């Protein structure tokens, strides 16, 4: 576990020091400020717009950071051969993968936490007091980025190309918001060749719409505690599946 913690800590530092990370974070903060300005147009729904645009910004920035860092997480190390020196030590390859992933995701979580803190500060200035649901919304967004980061890592190891991995990850992100539609189409389809691949895709693709708690936090009745537990389990299981497959692929890779 020491090796896992040390690799995670170094990954965390490495990503925090990357220029791309800082630029993307700065861009996110600028977008947050932009939300303040644009929201004036919403008149009586100004507060709602600040909340929605702020949360949307947080999710998009988190996603960009998660995908970009995860796609390059191992590939860059393979290219620069930095991984050789690490694996020449008594480090299980699975610890290397997990450590790199945890460090990277922790860095993304820090960026999102910073944006959340600033956003919440802005909302407090407007007299908004919705901390409980707000924190839950960010946690759901964080869970979504964990799923996408794990997928990005798996795809990068499978495809061995950062550009292809990024493209496929973004495609899966879009597809993940249509799982209900895919299931609907599959149920309606009479053709075996369409029905089963669609069903397989619907179940294999992460059901990302479930993570959009920020869009339905004011629904009545809203999600209850068991729902959040299922979501946490779903996140953990999905991320673990992707990481286990990543470990499997990486164990076969020659460095």
């Amino acid at each position, binding site marked *: 576990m020491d090796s896992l913690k040390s690799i995670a800590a170094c990954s965390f530092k490495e990503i925090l020091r990357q220029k791309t990370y800082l630029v993307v974070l700065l861009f996110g903060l600028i977008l947050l400020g932009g939300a303040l300005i644009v929201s004036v147009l919403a008149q009586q729904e100004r507060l709602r717009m600040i909340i929605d645009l702020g949360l949307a910004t947080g999710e998009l920035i988190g996603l960009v950071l998660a995908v970009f860092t995860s796609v390059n997480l191992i590939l860059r190390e393979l290219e620069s051969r930095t991984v050789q020196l690490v694996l020449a030590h008594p480090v299980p390859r699975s610890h290397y993968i997990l450590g790199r992933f945890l460090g990277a995701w922790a860095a993304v979580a820090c960026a999102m936490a910073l944006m959340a803190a600033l956003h919440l500060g802005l909302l407090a200035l407007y007299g908004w007091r919705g901390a409980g649901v707000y924190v839950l919304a960010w946690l759901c967004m964080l869970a979504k980025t964990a799923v996408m980061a794990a997928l990005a890592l798996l795809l990068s190891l499978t495809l061995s190309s950062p550009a292809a991995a990024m493209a496929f990850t973004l495609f899966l992100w879009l597809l993940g918001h249509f799982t209900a539609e895919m299931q609907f189409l599959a149920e309606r389809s009479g053709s075996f060749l369409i029905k089963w691949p669609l069903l397989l895709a619907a179940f294999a693709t992460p059901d990302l719409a479930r993570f959009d708690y920020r869009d339905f936090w004011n629904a009545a009745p809203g*999600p209850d505690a068991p729902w959040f537990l299922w979501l946490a389990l779903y996140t953990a299981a999905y991320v673990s599946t992707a990481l286990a497959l990543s470990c499997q692929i990486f164990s076969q890779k020659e460095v």
Partner: protein
Amino acid sequence: MSRRALAAAALCAGMALCAGAGLRASSTPRFPPLSQLVRGPFQAQDLQLSAMGLRAAAADIAWVQLLQYAGGEPAPTEESGRRYSRLKDMTLRVVRLDPRFQRAYAFGAAMLAWDPEVQRPDEALDILQEGIRNNPDYGLLRLMVAALAYKKQGDMPRMVGLLESSLDDPACPSLMKAILANIHKERGEYAAALAVWENVLANGRDDASYQERARRQIDVIHRLMEKGPK
């Protein structure tokens, strides 16, 4: 390593499937399917944002576009010859993106039912009925349906009384308050009209255009009151 990793992956995938089933079993509020999004000039924009899982933000942008359309001066007369002919569609656009956007129902319905340049109560009713279906806990919409019924019957005092009772609802749009104030003004009920405009001034701080309008109207009404009753 490989067998363990594959076994772990299979186990976790199984857990993910179970958890997914658990999520489906506990109800997650789902949005109307994409096929129900309103078609029109902003279709591509709505689809793109929905595909990215940003329905609430898409609804906010659609709301701003609705306000810009509704606030257009002079009132747009489209090819059909009707004023604000796309008002219902633009309102539905917002609420199909986010069925919990309560103010959009109230705004669209109020303008359709009571704006002198529009006067399409049937379309207003359609919006209110959809709103009640999606927001059963939101009383203002039922109140507006009742007020609309009184309007159709010609029972203006009861209609006005119902609309008055909605003034303190935080989701009551300034548009509806303005319409109510104008009804009072036309009926010579200047004190009541003044009270409504003062309500707009006190509660609509984010609504700069209505704040400005409220100040002007308060001046107008004061002058009318000085002239004497109708």
